């Protein structure tokens, strides 16, 4: 039983343990591996950085709890940047199961980021029909946002002063694990020329990059890496950065497994011939 036979006989649960640890351990420690900022993310940061104080921005958290690991850190990192820039942020969701997480971003902006309720940030809750909502904002936000999630009427919300539609809304950010950013792009950008940014899971990002290249999106945050890059830009490294460390280590271990497995396979075949 030379080394290769023994290697070929490693029990499955041992492999599970190794990959489990390679994902789990990086979460415990606070260290940052090098991470370059790619253009699609840098352009989002630069765009928000150049917005004058008090500009209005829509943050649409169109994701449900099951894609939380990749999308929620994006929303929080973007919210932190916009709070620091003293922008006026309107938070809503077009996903039926998105209300809870959108509310969490709202509460964090008030408690941790010093945004003043209904002056710097407004929470508007869930809107069932995405197309009608996006088009409605293009006409007049007064007809769409009649009151905030807590029932405070449109007119007594200072954050809405002087804002009628996309002409006064400098940016619409849609974060989602589904195709909602595409709906924002098709109608908000396509019909009203609004600036749109997409924050999507890695799987969805591949489909949206062609629209970034044709400038229909200002920029795109893709998967855990996109979130980690933005956390690095606003230097508030959090879940996404730790997540990137886990992904890097786990991918490395996965590649080692493939190489090791192939070596054991070929060595054994040569021995048998």
């Amino acid at each position, binding site marked *: 039983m030379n080394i290769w036979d023994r290697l070929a006989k490693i029990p499955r649960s041992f492999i599970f343990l190794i990959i489990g640890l390679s994902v789990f351990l990086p979460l415990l420690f606070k260290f940052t*591996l090098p991470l370059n900022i790619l253009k699609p993310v840098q352009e989002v940061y630069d765009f928000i950085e150049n917005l004058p104080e008090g500009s209005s921005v829509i943050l649409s958290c169109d994701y449900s709890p099951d894609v939380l690991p990749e999308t929620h850190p994006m929303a929080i990192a973007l919210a932190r940047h916009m709070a620091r820039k003293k922008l006026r942020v309107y938070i809503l969701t077009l996903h039926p199961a998105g209300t809870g997480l959108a509310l969490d971003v709202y509460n964090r902006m008030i408690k941790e980021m010093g945004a003043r309720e209904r002056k710097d940030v407004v929470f508007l809750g869930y809107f069932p029909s995405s197309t009608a909502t996006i088009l409605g904002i293009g006409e007049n936000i007064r007809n769409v946002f009649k009151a905030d999630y807590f029932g405070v009427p449109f007119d007594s919300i200072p954050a809405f002063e002087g804002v009628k539609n996309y002409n006064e809304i400098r940016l619409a950010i849609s974060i989602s694990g589904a195709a909602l950013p595409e709906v924002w792009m098709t109608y908000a950008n396509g019909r009203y020329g609004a600036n749109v940014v997409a924050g999507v899971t890695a799987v969805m990002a591949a489909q949206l990059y062609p629209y970034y290249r044709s400038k229909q999106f200002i920029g795109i945050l893709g998967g855990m890496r996109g979130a980690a890059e933005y956390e690095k830009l606003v230097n508030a490294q959090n879940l996404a950065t730790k997540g990137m460390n886990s992904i890097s280590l786990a991918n490395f271990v996965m*590649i080692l*497994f493939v190489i090791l497995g192939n070596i054991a396979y070929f060595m054994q075949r040569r021995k048998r011939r």
Partner: protein
Amino acid sequence: MKRQIPILIVFLVGLLGFLQYFVTGPISKGIYNTWLEWFQGVQGMAIIMAIISLTKRHWTNVRKGKNTIYSLITLFSLYGMMSLGLFIGIEKGSLFDKLYEYVMVPLNATTFSLLAFYMASAAYRAFKARSMEAILLLLSAFVLMIGLTSFGDMISKNLPYFAQWVLDVPNLAAQRGIVLGVALGVIATSLKIMLGIERSWLE
């Protein structure tokens, strides 16, 4: 009666659904919206079929005393959750919503996250460079798996851009070629169903 009328329904409903695209005016808008509304309504009611077959299967288990406790758990959670949603409501903060967030989501996410473990074990035990095709596949996968992580940044500044390029160009061409073929297959199936040639769904 059992076969002719369903095939007639499929043909007429399908034909009208297809032709309305090519006619402008209120008539075509009317057909499109009505078809879409009725489709969503009837499809919603199709869940009845799924729930009936699920109940039938687990109820026979209970009656035959096979796997009873587990089948009872399925039946109880099925009708419990449904009646909560139907009679008490599905809004934010309702018990139904809490069960969704604290029971269904973790079960779903954890079940799928098991795949990360199975992939690692498959990477070691099964992914062999048996053929030229498999070698190419593994190399392209490595480029992605290294390029888009911190190791990619360590190796060289433009490795992430190369990984992105592999996604944007060769991968896009391959996916497009496959999508063209699959789309032709899907359309052929739809046409055969509408024309009553494909009848396997009638059994």
